[in-house]
Structure formats: C-alpha cells, structure tokens
C-alpha cells in the first residue's frame, strides 16, 4: 500500500492503495464514485474513460500510481449541474438508452470538443470509434456532438 496524492474533480485527494490498482477500481470501490464504469478491463470499450490532465484516458488500465500529482476528472466532475455543453446536448437529443457506456462516451466527446471546437463527422468517427455502445446510440451521439459544438460556440462552454 502506498499513499497517492492527486487532484480529483478539482479537489485534492489522497488514497492508500496497492500501486498497481487501476484508477477505475480506486474510483469505484475505494472512493465510491461509481459514475465511471467497468466494461472490459483491457482498454477496449471506453466505458471507464476519464480525463487525466485533460486527456481522455482509460482508467481500467491506468494504475493509481500513474496519476500521482495529476488532475483527474470523472463524469461526476465534468460539471456540477449537467451544464457542460456535451451534457446539455445529450439531454436535448435524449441520447442514452441503457446509459451504461454514456459516462465514457461523454468524457471522450468532451475531450474532443475541448480541442476541436467544430468536429466533422470524420473527427467524431475517429474519436469515438473505440467507445462501444451495445444499444446503438451512435447516431444520437453524433447529432448531440454537433449540437454540443453549437452550444459551445454560442457561449455554453464552462
């Protein structure tokens, strides 16, 4: 066990954990933040996507030791009130079905939007093709991402 200090959703966080324990399980089991989902454990499905220093990362294969000193943002920290343009657009377009993959979809989409303010369909395919949705919400996601870009340009950005 070792103490790891990092920033979680804007606040300092310290956890005692086996260094190899993936961030996913620290979030879910140790800290009780269950918005980040377990899907595959092998960085194959994207359900566990969080931001580390602003970049989308797969928390299921990220050892907790690797986030020492870094900024981690989870779905719970994306906005305090579902006001991120991606969340607003997701609600407008009623994207989720079962919803299980959506935390990861949203975190991946938000990361794209933060660096590409007006993503093309090709940008969206490229960024999102490794986030699996078994309910088939892909076209709703695509529409919502274009809508989120509009909202962001109109001043909806944080």
């Amino acid at each position, binding site marked *: 066990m070792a103490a790891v200090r990092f920033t979680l959703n804007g606040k300092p966080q310290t956890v005692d954990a*086996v260094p190899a324990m993936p961030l996913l399980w620290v979030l*879910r089991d140790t800290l009780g933040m269950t918005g980040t989902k377990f*899907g595959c454990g092998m960085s*194959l499905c994207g359900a566990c996507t969080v931001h580390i220093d602003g970049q989308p990362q797969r928390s299921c294969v990220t050892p907790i030791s690797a986030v020492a000193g870094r900024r981690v943002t989870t779905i719970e920290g*994306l906005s305090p009130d579902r006001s991120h343009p991606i969340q607003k657009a997701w609600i407008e377009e*009623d994207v989720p079905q079962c919803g299980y993959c959506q*935390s990861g979809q949203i975190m991946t989409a938000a990361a794209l939007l933060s660096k590409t303010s007006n993503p093309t369909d090709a940008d969206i395919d490229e960024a999102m093709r490794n986030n699996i949705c*078994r309910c088939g919400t892909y076209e709703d996601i695509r529409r919502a991402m274009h809508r989120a870009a509009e909202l962001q340009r109109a001043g909806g950005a944080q």
Partner: protein
Amino acid sequence: MSAFARALNVDRRSFLRTGATAIGGLLIGCYLPERRKLAADTAIAGNKLNAWVLVGNDDSVTLYIHKAEMGQGTVTSLSMLLAEELECDWSKIRTEFPGVDRAYGAFQGVVGSQSIRSSYISLRQAGASAREMLIAAAAQKWGVDRSACRAEKSTVVNTATNARLTYGSLAEAAARLPVPGNVALKDPAQFQIVGKSRKRLDTPGKVDGSITFGIDVRLPNMLYAVVERCPVFGGTVASFNDAKTKATPGVKSVVKISNGVAVIADSTWAAMEGRRKLVVQFDEGKVAAYSTPGITKSFADAVAQGAAPLRTVGDAAAALASASKKIEAVYQTPYLAHAPMEPLNCTAWVRPDGADVWASTQMQSSARQIAAQKSGLAPEKVQVHTEYMGGGFGRRGGVDYIGEAVEVAKSVDVPVKVTWSREDDMQHDTYRPASYCRFAGGVDAEGWPVAWTASIACPSFAGANTSTEGVRDMAYAVPNFSVDYHDVNPGVPVSYWRSVGYSQNCFFAESFLDEMAHTGGKDPVEVRRRFLGKNQRLLAALELAAEKAGWGPPLAAGHGRGVSVVNNIGSNTVQIAEVSVEKGKVKVHRVVCAVDCGAVVNPAGVAQQIASGIAFGLSALKGGVTIKNGRVEQGNFHQYDVVRMDEMPKVEVHIVPSQAAPGGIGEASTPGIAPAVCNAIFAATGKRIRQLPIRPEDLA
C-alpha cells in the same frame, strides 16, 4: 439484521399489501447511506393510492414501475400510460422500482418485448383509478357532486367556481376512500401524452453518472467477489490451491460454490488479483469433446437424415420436382454472446431470517425464486431490489448470476457484490444458439416461387417452435412449403437473445427468398408483395418502406439495396438497407425501416428501439462465438467485435399509423437487418452471404 433492514422489510410489505397507506419518509435513503442522493433513492412522504401511484405531500407523483429498465424505455413509456389517465403534471413525476409483489401480477419481468403489451390497459386503469379517488376527495371537500370536478395537471378543478386543490393536498383524504371498481378509460383520440414523443425520464441521471446500475450498488460493510468457473461448460471443481490467493492483499476468504471457487475481498480489484493466483483443477466433463467444426457437422448430419415436418402447406416435394428452376442453399449462423456493456453482477446479503438481492435483472420474479432456493429461505423473506440494467438483450432474463451471488453471500455475514469480468461474461453466457438451415426452392415457368422446403438444426431451449420461428411461421403464402427441425444440442448453454429464433431464421428465410426472386428474374419487393397476399399491415409497411427508400432506380456501381420483411412480437417491420462494397469492405449507408407496431405510446422511443435493434443485429455480421474443446474462444471485445460509431448507418424510421393493439418494439428490428444488408450486398456485388459473421473470402 439491522433495525433499518427490519423496518424496510416490514414497511415494504405492508405498503404494497394495503391499497392505500400513509408513508412518512420511506427508509431506502437511510438504508443505503453510501449511495448518492438520487431522487429515486429517497422516497417522498405521501400517500399511496394503489400499487403504482404515490402522491407526495409536496405534489410530486411517484410512479412505481413494476417492470425493469435495460434501455428499452420502459420507465418512460409506462409512466406515460399512468400519467395519461392520472392527469398529473409530467414535470413532477419521479419513478421507483418496487419489490416483487403479487399486486403486480404473478410475474414481474421484461421479456419478449411485452412491457407495453401487458400494461397498456392495466396501467391506464391504475392511473384512472387514482385520479378518480383524488377527484372524489375534492368533491367531498367542496361538498359538490363529482361531476362538477375535473382533474388537470395534478390538480382537481371545481368547474363551477374554478377553485383548485392540488393532488398533494387531496392525497391523504383520497387514500382513505374505497378503490373504485370499473373506471372508464379515455378514448385514445383524447390522449394528451400517449402517442406523442416524450423525452426519457432517465436521461438526466445517465449524463452525470448519478443513476446506479446493479454494478454500482454500495452498502455498509460490503465485500466484493469474483468467481473462477470451469472454462468448459458443465465442468466441476475437482480441487484447488488458494495459498497464494489468500496471501493477496485485500483478499478476505476463498470459498467453493456449486459452479466454481469464489474469491472474496475488500475491492473488486483485490478479488480479481486473488483469483489470478488461484490454482483450480476442474473435471471438464463431456462438453470438452465439442468444437465448432464438429458441432457444425452434427447439424449437417442431422439435416441430412430428414425428419417429420413441423408444418406443411400444399405438397412441397411434388412442387419442387415439377418446378421450372430449382435452387438449394445452406445457411449458417454461430453462437452469439449478449455482451451487455454492464458485465453481469449481483449483490446479495443473506441473513438467518431474510435475504436481499440487488440486481440489474430482467426477471424480478425468478430472481426472488432462485435467491429463495439458494438461501433456503421462503420467497417472501427475500427482497429483490431492481436496479437499472446496463443492457440485457435476454442475458439478464437468466438468473444464474443471482443464484451464484446468493451462494457466495451465504459464506459471509455482510453484503457481497459478485462482479463478472468481461471474460467471465463472454465465456459463461447463455448463447444465442448456433444454427444451420438447408433450403430448397423452386420457381414456376413465370419465375414465381412455387415450392420451398426448409430443414433446420440447432440446439433448442424453448421447443421446436421457438427454434424455427421466422421460417416456420413466415408471412408469405407460398403455395407449397414444408419445414422440419432437428434439436442438436452439444451442451453449450443457450437461451434468449434479442429477438430469439427470429434473429437467425429471418436471415435465412429473407435471404433465400431473395435467392428465389433472382432465380426467377423477379424484383425482390415484387415477390414479397405478391406473397404477402392479404396481409394488409405488412403490405402497407412494405409499400411505405419502398417509397421512402426510393426502391427501384438502380444505385451507383458497387452500391446496392436489399429488403427484408419481419413479423415478430406482434409487430411488423420492413427494412431496406443501402450498402456499398469496396475492397472487400461493406459499408451500410442507410436503413429505411417502416414499422407497424400497433398503437404507439412513445414514438421517440419506437425510433430509438428500431435503431437500437438494427445496431444489435448489425453486430451479428461482425462477430461470433466459436467453441474449442468445450470452451468459448472469445474473451473480450478484441475477439468479439461489435458495431462501432463509424459503422452505424443512418436509420430512418417511418411509423405506420395504427390503432391496433400495441405490439412489442424492443426486438422488432433486430431480425431484419442482417438479411436486408446481405441482400443489398448481393445487389451490389452478386455475392451471396450464407454464413455469418461475414468473412473476407465471402466478398472476394
């Protein structure tokens, strides 16, 4: 057992048994202190008017959704049925999943796309009955006749004075009134909510991570477990060495259960780490003798032997013998995993005098039954907490994972959450059966099909009719037809998979009908039109799809259109897919789907489910489960590929207006997409796909 749990058990039972009971602050919020304060976790003080409706003192309305939500939109659509008659303010609705109770009928679960079909009348009655009690309470208060009052947006209006009383202020008095007998339901022409698109009630909690799925359940003092199961189906534990497992940080105990060895720890990760170090010897059993090539051969051998037909029309053998042109073809589909995004899991807490299970399940009634059986408790001592499902697709209609969690929980005196890894989920599924179908067909001198025989071999889990649905009961009035069936079961567990037998049999039948159309030189839509005869609903859907898709004029070289017609779960769907094939790669550009599912509750939900079913069916073109020595060869998404963002076609849904009894929708579009796409591939390339998943050599 804690005071909280005791109180919860008592309160839950009593409030469901009595028609109307005052409840001051139900205990779920206290009971699950670690779960975030969701609206749905903190019941509102108020009055229950029947098993589905609680009116809060704060004018909120809590609707108890006795079904389960796996993405199909049931929480929203059932709320719409209740709210339509209840005349409540949609913005003040909250929903909860109640426990298992006879008040909700003999069976609680979501299977066979039945939720709307089985609730369309009963939930409107529940809403209307509660509304009448509120109106009666207002009439009493005002001292006027009931006919001088009407309900509107969570208030009762005195039509003479325009005075209003809110539902919240009336609920206590209403709850003391007798439950009315027959209450007239609205004429559908008067519907304000039903039939008009509504946004899903569960969306907000699904965009901020706050909705809890089964895997998110957290309880005081809970432990976490994983189970090492025999990789060969039906195998058993011979012996195991857990020395290194027990030395793993966080591991609390190791326990043998009926189907494997459970590792219990203080986190899921610790349990997984402990399991990695576990050494188990299994008796593999007889399924170890089976691999996919041998299984396929056993299907082919069975078909070659022939069998008495399940259904005949005319004399197919004679008609085939005298047909102008004859064709034969063999179609094959593999076992398929469900692969819901939320891997299987269940949290169980077994005490001497009661048990609780928290599960994302499609089968609450069966969940309680298996928990009772495995715990040795009476069913009424078991509380099932229905959690949101991260996908189900039929897999969560099984309760094996619930019984297993109860077994694990019996070994400890605290709640334990058993989580399946993706590999556990994929390699210990109950699969869509692999299937094999041999067709023969003949067309007459004019080119119209006159004879059609089908011989199907696959493992059965629900009888021959389920195994052959989609061929046996096809809507086409072909004059001479026969189908026979061979139940060949090597022991790989099989069960319901979204759209069940239709999922493979419609691929077979709709593809072969296309083959017959081309053999006779006929247009595939024209052949379908002719043989749908007097089936007006399918014909109308076919015409609508053909019109919207622009069927007829040819597409650019390398592009093609394909059509499929499906009648399942009480609904009718026609799909027309547009594809291109370039360098051996299939791209599905567009799918037009005309659907007649009878009276529609939520059109937006219908459109979502059509796209969803298409995505699910498209994945069957890409992935499959193969067996080697009794084991599943695929373990995760790199080996079992599914449809992704860049592969999802544009889906255009056209609903045929109808006031017929509602059909199902969750499984309506899954069967039709594979044949529509494969028929389009033929139109584009001349290559006929007769085996799924599509292999590169099929397009070469």
